[in-house]
């Protein structure tokens, strides 16, 4: 092939997926722990609401995000007036979109994992004087980590492949917000089949590697 492949979409995709997975991990695990351990009014509603991004079409999420963080949206207007910053057409916007679609995957796995943890062990830790935070960090989380890791892997894969909401929030700016999935779309639309093929192979190889490596991590001492 006689062209040099622009690798910017590749690095951008990795950066967006890593940050989005990290955000999804924080929010997803916190939500999962609260839902698995606490009884409160509206718990079912909270869980369903947090799972919604899994079932809603990405375009619906993209629309919500535009309405919320767009320059005329509630959050977007405040961001712009206070910090002079707008998430629309930025890679940070892509991170937000990818994080929101990934949260349910962490949440579902983490909730199941927390429910497997013997609550007797947590109570023992409490009688030994550990604070609630310490109980979580030293007992619940270490016992549930395998399930959480499985969910995080799925979240990363989902974040890497995010297309619809990203396109609507972050646009498709070559070199700035154009991730791999958007670059493939662009190349096909413009009839650039060689480029599309190269990007498709790059994406597939990366995803395959991630799955194999994380699969090994997950089963190493199972």
């Amino acid at each position, binding site marked *: 092939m006689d062209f040099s492949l622009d690798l910017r979409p590749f690095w951008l995709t990795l950066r967006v997926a890593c940050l989005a997975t990290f955000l999804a991990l924080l929010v997803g695990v916190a939500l999962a722990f609260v839902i698995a351990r606490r009884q409160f009014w509206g718990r079912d509603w909270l869980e369903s609401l947090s799972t919604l991004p899994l079932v809603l079409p990405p375009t619906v999420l993209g629309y919500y995000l*535009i309405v919320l963080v767009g*320059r*005329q949206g509630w959050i977007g207007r405040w961001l712009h007036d206070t910090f002079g910053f707008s998430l629309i057409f930025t890679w940070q916007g892509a991170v937000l979109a990818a994080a929101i679609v990934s949260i349910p995957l962490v949440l579902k796995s983490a909730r199941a994992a927390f429910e497997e943890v013997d609550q007797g062990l947590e109570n023992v830790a409490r009688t030994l004087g550990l604070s609630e935070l310490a109980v979580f960090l030293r007992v619940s989380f270490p016992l549930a980590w395998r399930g959480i890791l499985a969910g995080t892997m799925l979240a990363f894969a989902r974040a890497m492949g995010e297309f619809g909401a990203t396109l609507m929030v972050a646009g498709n700016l070559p070199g700035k917000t154009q991730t791999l999935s958007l670059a493939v779309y662009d190349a096909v639309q413009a009839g650039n089949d060689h480029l599309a093929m190269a990007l498709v192979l790059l994406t597939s190889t990366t995803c395959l590697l991630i799955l194999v490596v994380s699969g090994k991590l997950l089963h190493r001492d199972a």
Partner: protein
Amino acid sequence: MRCPTLRLSMALVLALHLLSGQAAWGAAQELTVSAAASLANAFSEIGHRFENLHSETKVIFNFAASGALLQQISQGAPVDVFAAADQQTMNRAQEQRLIVPASRKNFVCNRLVLIAPHGRKLTLSGLGDLELPLVKRVALGNPATVPAGRYAQEGLIRAGLWETLQPKLIFGASVRQVLDYVSRGEVEAGFVFSTDAAIVPGKVKILAEIKMQQAIVYPVALVAASPKQDLGQQFLNFLSSPEGMAIFEKYGFVRP
């Protein structure tokens, strides 16, 4: 009803019936028209009128950037009529022998305009003002596939602004996406056709018309692989009929 095989076969029959759903709508013939995004409103009305005149026909539209439509047709999409927003895209279709050259004709003209969100304090008078620091983002169609974007690129190159404006440029997937970006106020300015701007008069205002060296003329042609050449030709004839032209003019298009 305790026999699993019977239930399974009933589910299969139902699924097959749903899959072949088209049969349920009767035997009306369909005409598939791939048309430039900027034609969406005018063509939808034209389609309704055409269906009224040809009661057995259903017109199916596929609106997108002309370049994207060309790709679909070259990949074998079952399209009968192709209408593009520029000559370049249609030339490419002709070079690839995707259209019937004899059927090709120009049917409307349009103008390229620079627009801004309505009610913004910022006032821009021309292309040169796009360099002002207050203008953070300027939207245009992706020149690789969107004719309006290619025209905008041509205008900016001629004004000597294409290179300096690069950091501000936001590429849309079609001219209608650019219109949406401007009407939502996500960008300070954008390039669309005057007919696009006329659709949302309360949301965008026209700042300037961008003069082109050659007029913006929309071509239409029959797709070579279409088995419905006669019906397609009737649709082409209707576009240029007095009734068809009246609809185009209502949306702001001009006779060629």
